[in-house]
């Protein structure tokens, strides 16, 4: 009976340890989240959303330039990334199937997905910023689009392959061309999944800082010109948090909470759609 007792004790010890590990891990994560809520919500005000950027040592000013810049950069990245990602995913699922070349592209796309984001930034710097001679918002959008395409490709591919082949065959039997089948049958059947993938990819790239550091850079003025340096919430956070001015640091926390709400909001939206779609 001794062996049984020992096993029970070991079992108890391990269960307690892993519960402690879970609590330990969650404690850090909630410390960070608590800090963010406490500092961030305390820094929010109307001024933050509509004010122009503060000068050094100023005690008023806001993030209008960065909020607009962030929105524009992510929006353009989405406009570039969505069609390319969806088309590439469509090719893999509808034309490539299980061929070697399609699987090869799938693997490479996973590799692109895990290229460090700062490396993507240096790449765009070399091919766009250096030849142009100045930083520009559009370069930031393209960096983000490069990170987005593999994510959308992956989900589109997965979602289209879940559409039953009988649906396609029924449409072909009616004399539809391949393009018509894809457009009117396959996309319709998979639309919710594709939209979910797109939203999750926006959530994923929306909080990225590193690819913007050397591409869209930063701008202390409000601009809508994508071919000029453009402020973003993330790069502004980086600059303001590192600055010695109290008000700037406060604005960095305000930017942090706005960004987190945006990213988590998109993430939750994507999950809710996926939940209702796949629950039935």
């Amino acid at each position, binding site marked *: 009976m001794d062996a049984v007792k020992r*096993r029970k004790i*070991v*079992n108890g010890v*391990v269960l307690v340890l*892993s*519960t*402690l*590990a*879970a609590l*330990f*891990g*969650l404690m*850090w*994560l909630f*410390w*960070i989240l608590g*800090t*963010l809520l406490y500092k961030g919500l305390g820094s929010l005000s109307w001024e933050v959303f509509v004010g122009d950027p503060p000068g050094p040592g100023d005690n008023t000013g806001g993030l209008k330039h960065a909020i607009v810049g962030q929105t524009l950069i992510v929006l353009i990245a989405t406009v570039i990334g969505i*069609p*390319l*990602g969806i*088309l*590439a995913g469509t090719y*893999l699922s*509808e*034309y490539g199937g299980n061929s070697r070349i399609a699987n090869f*592209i799938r*693997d*490479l796309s996973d*590799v*692109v997905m*895990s*290229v*460090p984001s*700062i*490396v993507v930034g*240096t*790449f765009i710097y070399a*091919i766009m910023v250096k030849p142009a001679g100045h930083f520009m918002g559009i370069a930031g959008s393209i960096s983000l689009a490069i990170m987005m395409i593999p994510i959308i490709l992956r989900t589109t591919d997965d979602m289209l392959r879940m559409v039953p082949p009988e649906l396609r065959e029924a449409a072909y039997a009616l004399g539809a*061309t*391949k*393009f*018509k089948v894809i457009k009117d049958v396959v996309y319709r059947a998979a639309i919710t999944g594709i939209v979910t993938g797109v939203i999750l990819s926006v*959530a*994923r790239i929306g*909080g*990225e800082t*590193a690819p913007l*550091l*050397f591409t869209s850079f930063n701008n202390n003025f409000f601009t809508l010109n994508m071919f000029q340096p453009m402020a973003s919430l*993330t790069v502004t*956070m*980086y600059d303001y*948090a590192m600055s010695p001015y109290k008000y700037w640091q406060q604005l960095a*926390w305000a930017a*942090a909470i706005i960004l*987190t709400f945006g*990213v*988590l909001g998109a*993430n939750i939206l994507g999950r809710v759609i996926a939940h209702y779609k796949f629950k039935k």
Partner: protein
Amino acid sequence: MARSRGFWADWTFGKIAAISAFLVVAILIALAVVLYGESRLAIEAFGVWKFITSTVWNPPMEKFGGAPAIFGSIVSTIISILIAVPVAVGIAIFLTEIAPHYLRTPVGVAIELLAAIPSIIYGMWGLFFFAPFMRDYLQPVIHATLGKLPVIGQWFEGYTPGIGLLTASIVLSIMILPYTAAISRDSFKMVPDVLKESAYALGATKWDVMKDVVIPYAKLGVIGGIILSLGRALGETMAVTFVMGNQPVIPHSLLEPATSITVTLANEFTEADSDIYLSSLFYLAFILFVMSFLVIAIGKFLFLKRVER
């Protein structure tokens, strides 16, 4: 016979889709070629082995060696994995075997959402909250415990304002924790219930089932997940930039400020004022690209491939 409009729509769509798919391949090739091309100048000036082993990073003298940055990247990644993996596996065990069912979904979703928080937030928290905590509370504890050990004790010496290699590694470990935990949990979940139930029927305790059924079954998935987390830690920039200290030296103690490839790039890239300086930074980026490529390739093709079958 004239071809109908339908044919041309079909043909065009197929071609555009194919071009989009091959664009992904083109991006990867272009990345490698451009990074290599930009670092040519530095490769010719400093060579490969000499660049990797030289510890001199002196922009005014135009002498560049990558050893401190490469050292910092590798060491911070290893430490963060050493801290994160046991905790993440603990969380995964907790979520799949211990937690009451009504807790599993909310805690699991909470962890996945935490993985979605932008990494710069971890960095800012590290700078404003964790670094002072490290200085005031953890450093004395580390001096009194790890610092007293023979041989490795010297790695834990010195007084700093809380910013350094170990601080960065800990912040990094917290950042990859939700990611690693989510992958481990998913691997554990894939173990068929029948297997577990048979073991329970033989009188196994929960730990026996974990040790002899779940972990052997999920091993490859978990290792693959750990390697993917490793790739993530290696390429992570914002969580470490705030707290690493950006000192281009190989520190004597883990508590001292250091640098890593990503930290060097984030801090110096826009300030590089000579061609050779910029080229050396591209060289570092190229090395990081190759390292993460190898890590991902090993993780995906050696471990995760076998899981899928």
